[in-house]
């Protein structure tokens, strides 16, 4: 968190500015202070909004602390300005944009199929769900029916990806609470799943696997043998990893009562997924608004009522068990048939609008697509749960200790690639 001042560009000749200031390179109308260090917590210009003025005014005995953007436990490149009173956090101001790629603009300037590879790196540890939402929205625009086998393969690979993501969550969460072992254990499972998805899709992380109207490749021998091998010992392995934490008194006492949120507040903060279900609201897009073949599959929606970090952790671990159930049923009921709908190479959907949402490991992924009749999407809005949950950190954090900042943030499980789009 040490700050270092980068070399300041020389003042352009002829541009007279008041003493101690220089003009912004981006916007010459903005004056910046000369002695401003790049990562100082306080911005070099007067507050622009009511909230910013309130945040950047220090009360009695309060101080600012800058965390990030290179902090190891921010789960990506995130800067958080903390307002502290002693060891207690009074308020936070997250600063985003370090990973902003402008995906929505890139998608508008490419054809429909190219969207899939653009949205892959959003939430890079659960890429299949990032593909699933826009692909479903495009299918609604095109009125195309996806073959049943393709839907089964989507659910099968998606649930595997969900387990891989939750396994990583288990590791990171424990790491942020100070336990080093679980991340080593969870990476074993995660690596096994990632290898089998690589056999199916050809990629370990950014799968680029779903297609508009189906999937890219059929199930193959290597994937099936790896999957069968893993399924026979998955339950035991995962239970061992969870047992390491669930029965650890230090972990349980540290995580319970941390970052409590009630169901009313969670709904008002637009939270979804496990974070919402940990407050007692049984909202799961797979059941609340069924898509794909989920209506044909039996599974439960685990909920808890405490709404604290421990509840969020436990709900996710229950979901892993439900995912294993879904995979079992997929393998049992997998039909034969084609894996792609018959579609032309160049897609030109009729003008219209479509919204699609899927339940990812972090919450509801959504995509809102508008077609104007050409071969490029007119607009694609991507709704990312990490963005919403990172915002909720600001509501959960005040009053907690500085050391709990990252623990609470980790329990909400945001991924900065998705936050910054």
């Amino acid at each position: 968190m040490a700050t270092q001042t980068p070399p300041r560009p020389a003042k352009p000749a002829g541009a007279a500015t008041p003493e101690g200031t220089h003009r912004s390179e981006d916007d010459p109308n903005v004056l910046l202070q000369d002695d401003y260090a790049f990562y100082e917590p306080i911005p070099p210009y007067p507050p622009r909004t009511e909230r910013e003025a309130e945040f950047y005014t220090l009360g009695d005995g309060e101080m600012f602390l800058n965390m990030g953007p290179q902090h190891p436990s921010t789960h990506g490149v995130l800067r958080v300005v903390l307002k502290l009173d002693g060891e207690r956090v009074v308020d936070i101001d997250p600063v985003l944009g370090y990973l902003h790629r402008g995906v929505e603009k890139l998608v508008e300037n490419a054809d429909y199929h190219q969207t899939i590879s653009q949205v892959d790196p959003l939430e890079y540890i659960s890429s299949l769900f990032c593909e699933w939402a826009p692909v479903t929205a495009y299918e609604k625009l095109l009125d195309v029916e996806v073959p049943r086998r393709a839907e089964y393969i989507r659910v099968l690979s998606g649930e595997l990806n969900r387990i891989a993501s939750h396994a990583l969550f288990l590791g990171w969460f424990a790491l942020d609470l100070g336990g080093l072992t679980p991340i080593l254990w969870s990476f074993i499972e995660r690596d096994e799943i990632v290898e089998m998805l690589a056999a199916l899709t050809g990629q370990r992380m950014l799968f680029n696997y779903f297609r508009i109207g189906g999937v890219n490749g059929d199930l193959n021998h290597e994937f099936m043998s790896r999957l069968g091998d893993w399924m026979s010992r998955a339950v035991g392995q995962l239970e061992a990893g969870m047992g390491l934490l669930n029965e650890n008194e230090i972990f349980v006492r540290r995580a319970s009562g941390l970052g409590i949120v009630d169901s009313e507040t969670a709904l008002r903060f637009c939270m979804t997924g496990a974070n919402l279900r940990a407050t007692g609201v049984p909202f799961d897009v797979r059941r609340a608004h069924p898509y794909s073949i989920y209506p044909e599959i039996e599974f439960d929606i685990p909920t808890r009522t405490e709404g604290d970090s421990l509840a969020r952790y436990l709900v996710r671990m229950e979901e892993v068990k439900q995912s294993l159930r879904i995979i079992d049923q997929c393998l049992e009921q997998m039909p034969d048939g084609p894996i792609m709908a018959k579609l032309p190479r160049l897609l030109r959907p009729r003008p219209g609008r479509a919204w699609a949402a899927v339940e990812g490991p972090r919450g509801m992924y959504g995509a809102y697509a508008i077609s104007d009749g050409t071969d490029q999407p007119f607009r694609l809005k991507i709704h990312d749960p990490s963005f919403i949950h990172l915002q909720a950190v600001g509501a959960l954090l005040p009053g907690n200790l500085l050391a709990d900042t990252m623990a609470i943030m980790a329990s909400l499980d945001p991924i900065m690639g998705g936050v910054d789009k």
Partner: protein
Amino acid sequence: MDRALARRLDARFEGVLHGPAKQRHDQTEVRIGAGDVQQVLTALHDEPELNFTMLADLAGVDTGTEMQVVYHLWSSSTSDWLRVIVEGLSRDDPRIPSVTYLWPGAEWMERETYDMFGITFEGNRDLRRIYMPPDYTSFPLRKDFYLPDDAARSPGAGVRHVERTHSPVDAAPGVLRRTGA
């Protein structure tokens, strides 16, 4: 498709909606003007027979002639997603009331829409840029913001006709044009 929902909405918001509710797939779509946002969304959120407690998404849209703000809502009372399109915002100075008093979680979504489209949400207490640097002056997702490396105006233009569909008629080659702040 929930026909009853469309009938209910048409009856409840008679005179406010621009035309009857449209339905396609699992979505119901209504269009309103910027002046009716608070009235309609508060009713959708608070009235027990509508009960749209969940704001699924908030998106800005630049149609090229006007700005729109699109809300997607979810309710346990219907099997449809509800899409509320606020249309007819001017491109020069788009203004719309904020919905943060109903959903505080809309604050960042409104900041994002402001950052990308320049739509001002009146009543949002923290309307600053969220992704782009604070001294940035353009609104990148507007339709008159062209990518500097846009393939349509590259030397290879004409090789693939598909990439030319969005190329503007009067675009100067290789010039990044920006809108005013």
